[in-house]
C-alpha cells in the first residue's frame, strides 16, 4: 500500500502536465507557458521534498536521500528552467512546442527517478515519515 501511495504521488506529479488541443486553441502563448511553468513547479514538489529530508513537511517526506538522485533532479530542474526562459523570450507556437517536448521528457525522467528512489527502499519510519529502510 505504501508503494502504491508513493507511486500515486509520483504519478500525480507528472499527470495532466502539458497542453490539450483545446488549451492550445483557447490559451494565449503567455497563458500556455504560464500553465506549463506552474505544472513544472508542482511536479518538482516531491523531488524537492525528497532532497530536503526531514525539513520538508509537504507532499512526500523522506528522511534519507541519495545525492546522485538529487543531482539528477537538479539537472532536470535546470533544464526546465532553461526551456522556460527560452520560450518566454520568444513566446510563439514553435517555442511552446519545443517547451512542451522538453517538459514531457524532463518530467518523464523525473518520475522515473522518483520511482527509482522508492524502489531503493523508501518506506515509513516510526515518526510516520518516509525513510530508507
Amino acid at each position: 500500500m505504501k508503494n502504491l501511495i508513493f507511486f500515486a504521488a509520483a504519478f500525480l506529479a507528472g499527470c495532466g502536465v502539458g497542453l490539450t488541443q483545446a488549451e492550445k486553441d483557447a490559451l494565449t502563448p503567455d497563458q500556455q507557458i504560464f500553465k506549463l511553468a506552474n505544472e513544472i513547479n508542482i511536479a518538482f514538489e516531491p523531488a524537492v521534498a525528497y532532497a530536503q529530508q526531514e525539513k520538508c513537511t509537504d507532499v512526500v517526506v523522506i528522511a534519507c536521500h541519495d545525492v546522485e538522485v538529487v543531482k539528477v533532479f537538479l539537472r532536470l530542474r535546470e533544464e526546465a528552467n532553461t526551456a522556460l526562459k527560452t520560450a518566454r523570450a520568444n513566446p510563439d507556437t514553435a517555442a511552446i512546442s519545443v517547451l512542451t517536448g522538453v517538459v514531457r521528457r524532463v518530467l518523464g525522467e523525473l518520475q522515473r527517478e522518483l520511482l527509482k528512489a522508492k524502489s531503493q527502499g523508501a518506506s515509513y519510519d516510526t515518526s510516520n515519515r518516509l525513510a530508507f529502510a
Partner: protein
Amino acid sequence: MTQATVLLLLKIFDGAMFAIEHAPALLSKWRGHLGLIRTLINEQRDPTDAEWQAVDDTAKSQTDALRAVVEADNATS
C-alpha cells in the same frame, strides 16, 4: 482472523493515513493551479507580473534547494 490478515489491514490503514495526510496538499496545489488558469481564461488576460513572480520564486527556491543539497555533498566528499 489470521496474523496475515491483521498485517494486511494495518498496511491498508497505514497507507490510508498517508494518503489522508499528503494527498490534500498535492491536490490543493493542482486545484489552485487549475483555478488560476480558469481565471485567466475567464478574464481573458495574460498572467500579471505578480503571478509570474510567484511562479519564478517557486522555481528559484526549488532550484536553490536542490543545488544546496548537491553542493553540501560536494563539500563533504
